[in-house]
């Protein structure tokens, strides 16, 4: 471009641009510092234990048209479960309610200093069976389906293997970190399995591991996208209401970090990431040996192909160890969170889960 081609803007144009920019900056800063209204689907608390809460979503399909087997959602322990009910019109919970499911959600809550010793033993055999008992009692069904996501899938798997006669009929695992054989797969595995990574010292220093630290670790795996790209993308789309609404909801969920109980963190790093006890067959939960061969529920194991937090190999390897007669592996294009909360989830993931479950949700 030559100097003669540069057109000098008029004062009105300059003023107009400045007003537009000022408005956009104001909008941008409001989006960065405010919370979107997420987790809006009507629900009621039906059970609590310590910080954990069990919600039942208000059904929207008439009783006689609903699936008889309730769906129990178990999310990870280091994030809020709101991502399953992100925003009206784009919520997995809402979708399943519309398809006639009786939906329950377990929110583990944020651990306090008194919970620093909580570990997977407690989550799997103290909390989960009690929550299951309540789900069965309220729904009136002796069988149920369970969907576990991330560490929630790990806990669900342990529970399903340890309590195969508890009525669990269908188990959906989403991005489940179960097999840590490959220490070079994914950043977390590489970092935590390094001899210099000492989880005990971290837990001794913090008690509960701060949510910010876990959040930083997850974001550092794709630092440019998370620390720069996401914010540039928002600026680029600041006048696109659909993108803005979606970004704001996701950012609200991402910013709401909670600590991870120290005992669970210690166990996750030492017994799972470093020693791979579940796959080695040496894992014991409250003294009970975990044998994946005893897991008999129907299993749908969902893998996110571009998952940088739980690489596919950490979920795949479990399939031939499961005792289930009906087990399927489903690969979905997307990342760890994107497959369930991204813009394509409603087309690429949710219908698959719903159809698989519908075929197995009659008594």
């Amino acid at each position: 471009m030559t100097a003669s081609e540069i057109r000098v803007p008029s004062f009105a144009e300059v003023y107009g641009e400045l007003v537009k920019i000022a408005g956009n900056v104001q909008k941008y800063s409001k989006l960065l510092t405010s919370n979107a209204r997420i987790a809006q689907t009507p629900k009621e608390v039906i059970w609590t234990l310590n910080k954990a809460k069990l919600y039942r979503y208000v059904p929207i399909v008439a009783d006689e048209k609903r699936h008889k087997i309730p769906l129990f959602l178990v999310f990870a322990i280091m994030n809020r479960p709101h991502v399953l009910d992100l925003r009206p019109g784009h919520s997995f919970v809402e979708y399943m309610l519309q398809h006639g499911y009786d939906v329950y959600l377990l929110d583990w809550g944020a651990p306090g200093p008194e919970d620093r010793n909580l570990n997977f033993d407690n989550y799997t055999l103290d909390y989960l069976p009690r929550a299951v008992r309540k789900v069965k009692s309220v729904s009136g069904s002796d069988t149920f389906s369970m969907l576990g996501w991330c560490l929630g899938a790990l806990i669900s798997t342990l529970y399903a293997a340890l309590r195969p006669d508890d009525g669990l009929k269908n188990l959906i695992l989403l991005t489940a970190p179960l097999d840590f054989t490959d220490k070079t797969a994914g950043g977390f595995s590489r970092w935590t399995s390094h001899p210099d990574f000492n989880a005990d010292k971290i837990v001794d220093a913090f008690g509960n591991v701060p949510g910010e630290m876990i959040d930083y670790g997850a974001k550092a795996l794709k630092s440019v996208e998370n620390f720069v790209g996401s914010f540039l993308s928002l600026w680029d789309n600041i006048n696109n209401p659909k993108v803005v609404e979606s970004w704001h909801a996701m950012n609200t969920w991402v910013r709401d970090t909670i600590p991870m109980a120290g005992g669970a963190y210690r166990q996750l790093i030492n017994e799972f990431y470093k020693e791979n006890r579940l796959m080695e067959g040496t894992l014991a939960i409250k003294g009970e040996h975990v044998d994946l061969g005893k897991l008999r529920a129907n299993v749908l194991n969902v893998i996110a192909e571009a998952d940088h937090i739980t690489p596919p190999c950490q979920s795949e390897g479990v399939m031939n160890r499961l005792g289930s007669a009906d087990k399927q592996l489903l690969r979905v294009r997307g990342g760890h969170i994107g497959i369930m909360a991204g813009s394509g989830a409603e087309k690429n993931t949710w219908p698959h889960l719903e159809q698989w479950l519908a075929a197995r949700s009659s008594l």
Partner: protein
Amino acid sequence: MTQKDETFNPFDPTGMFKDMQTTGMDAWSKMMIQMVHTDAYAKATGIMLDTWASSSAVFRQTMETIMREVLTKLNMPTRADVIGLAERLGNIEMRLDDLEAKLDEKPRGPRKAAAASPRS
């Protein structure tokens, strides 16, 4: 929002970053992803956390000792006391939950028996 054509827009504050994004973001991202997946990064992370945890331990222990002594002298509960109490409450809550479950089962029992009797 940011410039879409080749004309330089002096009023777009993120124009420069947008240029960087379109031209170098992918390369930058790949480079960072590769870096965090190296053994050197894993080692550095481990050492950094270990050093921080070790060095802060002395300060933390000193603070805990001072606070415990001060609170004890003021005849007030210490952090350990409050945590211990919270743990006991947690255990009581679990027992209450088990009791509640047993009470829930009671009304279900006779109903089941009544429903079963006509068939038998």
